[in-house]
């Protein structure tokens, strides 16, 4: 096995890596997949309907470990799947929050499941408002890949006839809750959309997987595979072909090159034995998530690629963008005070969204360019978070907590930052991780445009609450820390000109024809939509391009 050469080495097993592994294996290529962490056992590693009183710390987590937690998903319910060992740094003046799921399947195990398509309003945004550059492809070209991805994974939504968020092929939507009907009326009065989200969560049995049982604990892992994750949906299909070798605890260090500067394999560290290992392939797919893929490529220095592999443009690591998240408004709906509880939390709060409504008719009608979306949520959540804040004690207090249970509402903004010269990643000149790998360093600050969106959203969302007859209480003082959304993009942008872009329109690097990038780093900017389904649709297209290159002999089989 030591000298075996595979057709393709895939680094990462998340949305991009998972789709790549499945597509390539089904095409008959021999694939070796590297994953930095272990394989999960859903029966043991997920929440699996355990109630808080069955948990040592009631699901709140060990207070002594709070300082090292990487966020709400790094919880007592799913332990040992988030990266705590590998260091990264931030430049002075920058902050970055970077939860990395190193388990097989990556963040698809716990993702938010919102699955809207990008549209021409996103791909052609630069032509419309004159800022930055267009994407090197049209909606018409990518639409069939979205359709195929939607059919594979199952997405629930409704047809909405808005070209700015194109309709896909959907299972029936989640039903509106009481709070949705009320807030929709408010949104109508304010003149903003309030619609079904596109959710990768099954409202019907689909492709052999059972429909959702609406337990509402999605971000602690699904025990029935009723929402898409690589381990549930793609790995079994890839493994059935017998073309896959999956190596776990394999931390990729760098891409290896031959004397012509082409990729010939990957060097990794076996985290169990701490040994350096090399694995060889005719082509390499980097799909380790935006920043980590870039980190690996920047660390892939050679005689031919002194500043990192496929970086002749100098653009590798540049253009880091993220979704600004934050609580634009919160309050409560007095109409529902004292009403019997309703299972509002069954979709883990991704039932509805307010897709971008700004700058649609005229790209310059607002004080900012482009646009943002908003996710409304609320109602009876599993834990009544407002109870700590509610004043007083005793029977009156106890009754008030019960009366308020169905009423809370809140709005979360999802707003795209724009590429800035000052937002990028590079290699820290000093710091190395425990394996001696030079650490990635992140430079990032919110830009003025995205902060204008944040201010704008506070006003609109407060208006929606009031117009719905609700009581507006509060808006987040500041947005969440950069990185919070887990939607970072842009560090290996795709484009036609090799001087300005890392990959071509197929995600194949301009410089190294057998090196492909299959994650959100190829996106030009975040748009107002989430990244996961687009990672999968773009990866499907990239892999079919690669398969064609194997068929026509551009890449030789192993």
């Amino acid at each position: 096995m030591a000298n075996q050469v595979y057709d393709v080495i895939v680094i990462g097993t998340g949305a991009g890596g998972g789709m790549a592994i499945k597509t390539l294996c089904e095409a008959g290529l021999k694939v070796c997949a590297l994953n930095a962490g272990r394989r999960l056992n859903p029966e043991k590693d997920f929440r699996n309907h355990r109630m808080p009183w069955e948990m040592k710390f009631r699901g709140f987590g060990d207070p002594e470990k709070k300082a090292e937690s990487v966020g709400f998903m790094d919880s007592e319910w799913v332990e040992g799947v988030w990266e705590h060992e590998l260091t990264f740094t931030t430049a002075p003046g920058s902050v970055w929050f970077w939860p990395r799921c190193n388990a097989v399947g990556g963040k698809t195990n716990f993702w938010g499941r919102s699955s809207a398509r990008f549209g021409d309003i996103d791909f052609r945004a630069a032509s419309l408002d004159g800022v930055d550059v267009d994407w090197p492809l049209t909606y018409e070209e990518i639409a069939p890949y979205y359709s195929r991805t939607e059919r594979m994974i199952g997405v629930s939504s409704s047809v909405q006839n808005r070209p700015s968020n194109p309709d896909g092929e959907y299972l029936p939507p989640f039903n509106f809750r009481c709070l949705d009907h009320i807030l929709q009326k408010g949104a109508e009065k304010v003149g903003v959309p309030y619609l079904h989200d596109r959710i990768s969560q099954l409202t019907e049995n689909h492709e052999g997987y059972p429909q959702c049982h609406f337990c509402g604990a999605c971000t602690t892992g699904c025990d029935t595979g009723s929402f898409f994750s690589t381990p549930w949906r793609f790995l079994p299909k890839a493994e059935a072909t017998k073309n896959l070798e999956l190596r776990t605890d394999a931390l990729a260090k760098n891409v290896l090159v031959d004397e012509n500067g082409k990729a010939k394999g990957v060097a990794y560290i076996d985290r169990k034995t701490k040994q350096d290992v090399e694995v060889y392939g005719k082509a390499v797919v980097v799909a380790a998530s935006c920043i980590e893929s870039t980190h690996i490529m920047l660390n892939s220095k050679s005689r031919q690629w002194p500043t990192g592999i496929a970086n002749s443009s100098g653009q590798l690591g540049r253009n880091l963008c993220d979704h600004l998240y934050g609580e634009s408004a919160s309050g409560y709906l007095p109409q529902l005070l004292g009403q019997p509880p309703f299972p509002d939390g069954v979709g883990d709060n991704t039932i509805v969204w307010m897709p971008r409504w700004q700058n649609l008719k005229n790209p310059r009608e607002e004080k900012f360019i482009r646009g943002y979306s908003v996710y409304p949520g609320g109602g009876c959540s599993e834990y009544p978070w407002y109870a700590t804040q509610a004043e007083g004690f005793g029977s009156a207090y106890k009754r008030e907590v019960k009366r308020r249970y169905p009423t809370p509402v809140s709005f979360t903004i999802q707003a795209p930052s724009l590429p800035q010269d000052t937002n990028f990643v590079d290699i820290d000149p000093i710091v190395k991780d425990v394996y001696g790998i030079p650490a990635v360093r992140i430079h990032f600050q919110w830009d003025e445009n995205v902060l204008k969106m944040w201010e704008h959203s506070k006003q609109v969302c407060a208006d929606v609450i009031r117009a719905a007859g609700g009581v507006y209480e509060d808006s987040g003082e500041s947005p969440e820390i950069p990185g919070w959304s887990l939607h970072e993009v842009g560090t290996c942008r795709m484009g036609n000109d090799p001087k300005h872009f890392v990959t071509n329109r197929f995600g194949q690097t301009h410089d190294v024809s057998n090196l492909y990038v299959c994650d959100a780093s190829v996106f030009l900017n975040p748009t107002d939509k989430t990244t996961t389904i687009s990672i999968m649709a773009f990866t499907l297209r990239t892999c079919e391009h690669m398969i064609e290159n194997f068929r026509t002999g551009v890449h030789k089989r192993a």
Partner: protein
Amino acid sequence: MAGQGFQRREILRIMSMAAVASHFPGFTTWCFAQAHPGSAGPQNIKPAKYTPLFFAAEEYPIVERLAEIIIPTDQTPGAREAGVAEFVDFMVAHDKDRKFPFRLGLGWLNAHSDHLFGKHFLQLTPEQQVSLLEPLAYKAKYRDGEEEGRQFFEKFKELTVMGFYSSEIGYKEIQNPALKFYAESPACPHTEDPEHKHLPAPKW
């Protein structure tokens, strides 16, 4: 697995609960009084007397009393039945940032009680206890010189609320929908009244 039924999951769930209970032989009310309906085992185990992990023998009854005042037993069970004092003790025992403030806070409470009534907190009548706590809990009743007490009460209430509403009794108190599974995406039953202006009178 796709074919894994609820029955199997339910068995796993109960097994995991029993496993947790056995990790904490000290717990009585918290684990054993809250066995999932339908699980035969744990309910039959007789609770032993709880030995606090952190609080001293003279402190723990104050913890119990405070929890009970914050979430009392009235028409429905309260903090006492839900074993909240045990949870508070457990969490403080596992949190170096809480240990000192809680010990100090309980000391403040007794000293303040001595100052106002010439007796320790537990010797006061229930009405006197409430009258001591109200100025710590309601903005309109705040008094100068009680800042430390207000901070302690806020911290104590936070753990009490966490302990209660994460217990099965707390779930039942607010009729937490997470106690059930749903065969279909639950739908609002008032679609003829989208603004929800004509709902039945509040239930509570």
